[in-house]
């Protein structure tokens, strides 16, 4: 409690010193990308549940094909932890559990399992207000581990028990954030470089193409910043799949979507999290990718 009081006092001092930056340290911590710790927090854990309904898919030409005699619903439970180990740095882990329901004609299949676990570190290179003319800047390095079951190892009739991609995926990127009073805009840009893998069924060397995952999140705090609402747009691009070292023509992927997020401080340590997102289901806005509509709910506990 004492540390909390000190942190709050620091925050207020900061606000007084710099009128144009009201509470950037606190408002956006749970919105967009990996998230971060509030200045007074040592660590945080969260548990969230989301459900996403498959709407259709984009084909190789970028035409959107709505599902007709096929349905897919994904239930994702994610446990996440952020642990600060330096004034500017934190480590994070996200452990997802996936349940997938699929049906096609007379066939129905449900599968579940641990999905691909994400680990990483986030370093706050420039903090809010540290340089007057430049936004806050954080560097993120992560690694997705193939802890899920890749499609080649799935056994369900409709492969509903496939919960991962089967490849190690290092990633790195930046988070840029501008804040003014209770408003914030954050840009997340991550590059992914999947490592080669061997397909279980054919023994072929396969490598998913390098990709970029970017998002822009903008929002504001209300009710003395106890309630934070934001909207976001995200774009994921992945270049061509390589098989035995050769690119597979027409295999690049693209997805464009939008979302809304909300967080509500329930109590001193507890925050309620909610989000909704959808892919933009129009021709040309995706390629070789599924489109989903999803909502999620979670809680976050901050340690301080």
């Amino acid at each position, binding site marked *: 409690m004492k540390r909390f009081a000190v942190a709050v006092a620091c925050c207020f001092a900061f606000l007084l010193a710099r009128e144009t930056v009201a509470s950037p340290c606190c408002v956006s911590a749970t919105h967009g990308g990996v998230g971060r710790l509030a200045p007074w927090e040592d660590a945080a854990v969260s548990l969230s549940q989301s459900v996403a309904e498959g709407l*259709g*898919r984009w*084909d*190789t030409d970028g035409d959107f*094909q709505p*599902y*007709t*005699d*096929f349905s*897919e619903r994904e239930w994702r439970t994610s446990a996440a932890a952020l642990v600060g180990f330096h004034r500017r740095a934190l480590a994070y882990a996200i452990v997802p559990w996936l349940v997938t329901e*699929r049906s*096609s004609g007379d066939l129905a299949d449900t599968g579940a399992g641990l999905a691909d676990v994400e680990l990483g570190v986030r370093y706050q290179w420039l903090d809010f207000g540290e340089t007057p003319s430049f936004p806050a800047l954080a560097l993120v390095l992560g690694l997705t581990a193939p802890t899920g079951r*890749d*499609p*080649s190892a*799935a*056994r*369900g*009739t*409709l*492969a509903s*028990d*496939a919960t991962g991609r089967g490849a190690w995926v290092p990633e790195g990127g930046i988070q840029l954030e501008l804040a003014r009073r209770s408003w914030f805009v954050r840009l997340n840009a991550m590059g992914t470089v999947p490592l080669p893998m061997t*397909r279980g*069924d*054919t023994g072929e060397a*396969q490598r*998913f193409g390098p990709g970029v995952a970017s998002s822009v999140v903008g929002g504001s705090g209300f009710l003395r910043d106890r309630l934070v609402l934001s909207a976001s747009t995200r774009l994921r691009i992945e270049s061509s*799949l390589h*098989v035995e070292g050769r690119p*597979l023509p*027409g*295999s690049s992927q693209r997805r464009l979507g939008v979302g809304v997020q909300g967080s509500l401080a329930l109590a001193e340590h507890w925050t309620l999290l909610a989000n909704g997102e959808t892919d933009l289901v129009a021709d040309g806005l995706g390629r*070789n990718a599924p489109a989903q509509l999803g909502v999620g709910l979670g809680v976050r506990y901050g340690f301080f």
Partner: protein
Amino acid sequence: MTVLVEDESGVPLERANVTARAEMPLHGHASSEAISVTDVGAGEYELYPITFTMPGHWQVVVEVAARDLAGGGTFEYEVE
């Protein structure tokens, strides 16, 4: 699905070693169910089951080895 296996001169090949798999080449994965191949005679081979686990572009890849011959074929499907 039944495939007819012939040599270059069009003679049906019996007792060939035939394997098949269904895969989504652009996604880099196969179907979750392996395809069993049954020799039904006269160079014909029955492939079953063939399960396309989701909509999209699929291929059924058939590979054949018989005596000193080797070959195969690919069948393209667009699953709605």
